[in-house]
């Protein structure tokens, strides 16, 4: 095993990032992604090994520009790696057809964004329905599941509220309910507390932390909020495109 002293973190191989006793849901093997412009090449993600087990909560810390969001886009299949492989349930994302990649995102993944990413003209319940309707789930079933999902995040009394009538914390709860409603295997949360005050952010973190236990979903929590580490099974750190595990 190769180790490199890196201040407060160690750069480690996949062998240590992976826990062999549990099944890996997501596996990244020597993944690299670079952006090229006329004047320079930026190595956004460089030789990253990583795995996420079922029902695991992984916090991914790092400053702005460290490559966290690029890594998330690679996991979501929204970017293609220049090198290495991203496998989900054993399948290489690079082998997916366009429709398979779309089905992967719609059925296996849930997304939570910093700015909530809600549709302004739709009620909370309709926003939560969206991923189901796009999958062809009948309206009655979609609305029932959306109602149940909103109840799980404590918003059963906000079903008909549009986003402009919800607080920041409530909007993020709607976004979490929407991420949950399709019963995904993996939830990708990108700076989910970034727009919230401390108290509201703590409540949202608690909600996200409960997802593996209560809904069986693994969570990758991308953040620069150190409070997230309290809830995480493992804490990874991105720095200059490289990944390390915090001890």
């Amino acid at each position: 095993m190769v180790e490199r002293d890196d201040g407060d973190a160690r750069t480690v191989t996949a062998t240590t990032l992976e826990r062999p006793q549990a099944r890996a849901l997501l596996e990244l093997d020597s993944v690299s992604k670079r952006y090229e412009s006329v004047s320079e090449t930026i190595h956004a993600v460089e030789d990253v090994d990583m795995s996420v087990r079922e029902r695991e909560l992984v916090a991914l810390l790092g400053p702005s520009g460290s490559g966290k969001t690029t890594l998330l886009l690679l996991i979501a299949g929204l970017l293609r790696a220049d090198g290495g492989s991203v496998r989900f349930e054993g399948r290489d994302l690079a082998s997916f057809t366009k429709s398979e990649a779309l089905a992967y995102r719609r059925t296996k993944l849930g997304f939570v964004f910093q700015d909530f990413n809600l549709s302004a003209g739709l009620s909370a319940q309709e926003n939560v329905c969206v991923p189901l309707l796009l999958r062809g789930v009948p309206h009655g079933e979609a609305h029932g599941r959306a109602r149940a999902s909103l109840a799980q995040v404590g918003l059963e009394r906000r079903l008909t509220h549009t986003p402009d009538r919800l607080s920041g914390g409530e909007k993020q709860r709607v976004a979490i309910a929407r991420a949950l409603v399709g019963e995904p295997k993996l939830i990708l949360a990108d700076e989910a507390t970034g727009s919230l005050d401390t108290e509201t952010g703590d409540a949202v973190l608690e909600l996200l932390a409960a997802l593996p236990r209560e809904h069986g979903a693994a969570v990758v929590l991308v953040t620069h909020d150190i409070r997230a580490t309290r809830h995480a099974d493992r804490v990874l750190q991105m720095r200059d495109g490289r990944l390390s595990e915090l001890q």
Partner: protein
Amino acid sequence: MLLSLQAISKRRDDSATRMTLDDVTLQVGRGQVVGVFGRSGSGKTTLLQIAAGLAAPDSGAVSYDGQRLDRLSSTERLRLRRREIACVWGSRPPQRGLSVLDHVQLALLVDHRDRRDASRRAREALLACEAEHCERARLEEISDGERQRVEIARALTIEPKLLLADSPASNLSIVEQETIMRLLATLARDAKVAVLITAGDAQALIGADPVLYLSGGRIVDPHGTRQGGTLHRFPGRARLAAADG
């Protein structure tokens, strides 16, 4: 007139005396494209929100198709926005993760329309807006000009009677602005849609008639008005009109 705003006033949220809109009157008929321009903060977005039934005026009357919009329940106003009044909000960021086709058909799916019919109508609207080539792209992948055409396509899917467009051509090139206005003019002419469109500058309202100038919450006579030190030029085909003109 399909839409009629009579003596609309709206105070600023943070002030008892300062007005966002002050005694604004305008009308839009079917087949007509009415343009309103004014600088940032002049009240354009509030004007459209009131016309859409998303905000209530402090005084004045809003009539849509012969009924007082400001007296309808929120459910009735929502129903109108789902079926008859389409809105295009230029400043809203695109919803990430959705394909263009998903985005365009979403309003129909949420309104309990058949999925196959929704897809068909979305594709037809994209074709009409010259955006069919980006059907499978994600919203965040397409250009600003394409996105505005996609937003108009989304509005078209409900076959609206009234289209409210809030600065859809801002930050676009002149060529793209002309494309947007040509689309809206065709829509108004062929489908008899009433269009109320805003812009930061009159030059983005080519083909609108009349073009109204909103300044400090009031519709004012723009003759002699200077913006940025340059006398404003108005499009040749546009006729300037005061609110009651």
